[in-house]
């Protein structure tokens, strides 16, 4: 027996291509704006500015050892002549993450609030996550052609599920009594979400964001097959030429990005409460200030 599933999907894609081109173009325009803007920005910034900013973030969020690592690792990337590609990849990951989170987090909230939505979304998410990543490349290329935009779109689809899932899970696992307390003190549904549920679900939400960014990074490399560019291109070239060295260099660049993004996003998930930028600054200068004040 030969089930014509493949044919059906092809027909569906053709149909969508014919009738929804406008919607796809709109979506593509947003992604193009984001990826293009970010690529331009990161490409325009001198390398040292980027390094200083990332090292500063590392110092603020993690510790000085990690800041040192950031400087050294990005120095290596610079030394490998892969700076441009690395920034392209970073831009693509960030753009895809922004869109994925922009779609995924509200979907997660909807899923937590409605069992019906959850029941519908769960298999879709399973599907999105387990379908081999390469499969997204074909329709993405068909809808949007080759280049950064289809790469970003394939990345969005592949990396979105964890943020949806973990948002849903985070909200559902907020302590019942905390939610009851919120309601008992007269929260409306909006206040309940923003004053109780989201803050208490924050560790889970941040884990979802971290996962989305990391998955995005892995997908961006694959997306180079449809011309997304960046470090993936370097790796791909290495494979095509059987150039182990080049492939390794590209891979190393990805690893460096992965470590930096992972540690930074993780740090926002842990006890974000006291470490608001302002609070940190106050603490930093508070100690000095109090010494100066005569008692």
């Amino acid at each position: 027996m030969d089930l014509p599933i493949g044919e059906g999907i092809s027909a569906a894609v053709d149909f969508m291509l014919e009738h929804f081109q406008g919607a796809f173009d709109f979506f593509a325009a947003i992604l193009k704006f984001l990826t293009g803007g970010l690529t331009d920005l990161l490409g325009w910034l001198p390398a040292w500015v980027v390094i200083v900013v990332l090292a500063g973030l590392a110092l603020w969020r993690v510790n000085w050892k990690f800041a040192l690592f950031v400087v050294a690792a990005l120095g290596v990337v610079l030394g490998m002549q892969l700076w441009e590609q690395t920034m392209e990849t970073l831009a693509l990951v960030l753009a895809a993450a922004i869109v994925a989170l922009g779609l995924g987090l509200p979907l997660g909230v909807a899923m937590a609030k409605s069992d019906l939505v959850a029941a519908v979304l769960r298999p879709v998410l399973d599907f999105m996550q387990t379908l081999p990543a390469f499969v997204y490349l074909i329709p993405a290329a068909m809808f949007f052609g080759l280049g950064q935009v289809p790469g970003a779109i394939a990345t969005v689809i592949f990396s979105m599920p964890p943020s949806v899932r973990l948002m849903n899970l985070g909200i559902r696992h907020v302590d019942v009594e905390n939610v009851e307390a919120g309601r008992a003190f007269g929260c409306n549904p909006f206040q309940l979400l923003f004053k109780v549920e989201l803050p208490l679900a924050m560790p889970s939400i941040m884990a979802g964001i971290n996962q989305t960014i990391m998955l995005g990074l892995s997908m961006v490399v694959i997306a180079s097959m449809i011309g997304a560019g960046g470090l993936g291109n370097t790796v791909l070239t290495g494979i095509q030429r059987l150039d182990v060295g080049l492939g390794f260099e590209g891979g190393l660049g990805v690893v460096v990005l992965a470590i930096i993004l992972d540690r930074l996003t993780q740090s926002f998930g842990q006890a974000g409460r006291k470490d608001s930028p302002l609070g940190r600054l106050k603490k930093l200068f508070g100690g000095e200030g109090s010494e100066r004040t005569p008692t």
Partner: protein
Amino acid sequence: MDAKLSVRNVYKIFGPHPKRALEMVRQGLGKDEIFEKTGMTVGVSDASFDIREGEIFVVMGLSGSGKSTMVRMLNRLIDVTAGSVLLDGRDITSMSRKELIEVRRREISMVFQSFALMPHQTVLQNTAFGLDVAGVPRAEREARALEALDAVGLKPNADSYPDELSGGMKQRVGLARALAVNPGVLLMDEAFSALDPLIRTEMQDELLRLQSEHARTVVFITHDLDEAMRVGDRIAIMQAGEVVQVGTPEDIVRNPANEYVRSFFRGVDVSQVFSAGDVARRDQVTIIERPGVSVRAALSRLEEHDRSLAVVHDKRRRFEGVVTSDSLLSCLRGLARDDDGRIEQAFVKDIEPARADAPLADVMSLAAESPWPVPVVDDEGRYVGTISKAALLQTLNRSDQGEE
């Protein structure tokens, strides 16, 4: 008139078709039967009681008795299946969502068993939570929150985070958060149950102290009898979703409505529940009102009543002393023939009256050492009654009767 909260024939059924089960409950089917037939759970069944303004009303029962469901229906965290809950005469069960939110913001607040503080907020922000939600401007809500924190003695910890506090302190914050909105009704759901015993007693005292400063209507849920006895002005006992008895602690100990209620009091230290005034009786001894009574006349009164002891008080019932036939006789022997004697001369020495509000436990040693019943007086020195050894033993024995 003075019912702050009125619960009228309230039912709660958990399950997909509550109306069907409700029908069955009303037909008199039991909780287990209904569960077997429909798979639905009867949480609360035909509960009715009034909670008076300014009292601490305790709802007590074992877990699964429906007490937590009951308290949540008072502020409609859980909707009733049937019946009504009246707050100052307004039916909470039929309010619109908007009205309900207003009531929760201004009139009813709640304290939770596991504190339910927001870990990302400081103690001050937590305390101001209800006011924040109600849209009170920041300066005002922080001032009011500080006031509430001051009332529970946590003002110095305003900038701490909940995870820096001990359990008792956390619940003080929970209490302050509930008090900050200045509610007419305070719901406390097993509020002290998660605390260790010493802290729990401390918090009970704290609640009683706050209550003495400003009497609020408090609905206090607990499974702990000692706690119920300690804080409750009145107690409602719930069993399998039904309110089986409502009354003062003494009422309930004296006349338990059924075996279930009685079983609660088995092993209860009755000497802590009752005060001296509860046990004191007036019919055991002869009363002598002093002016003009001579030793001789007193003795003849005692013989007339065939009693060996008399309590002497003045016209305004102020306690004067105790005389016995022995003390009267020995006093008479020392008197001249024509002297009838004054009764003060015959007072038995070393009889100290007990205060009516003293716990029975304190009176027990007095009663045990004295050969005579212990007289009891109220806080103005007026005679209330006496406690005999027999009455004392009978009271202490009461808690064991259920086992026979």
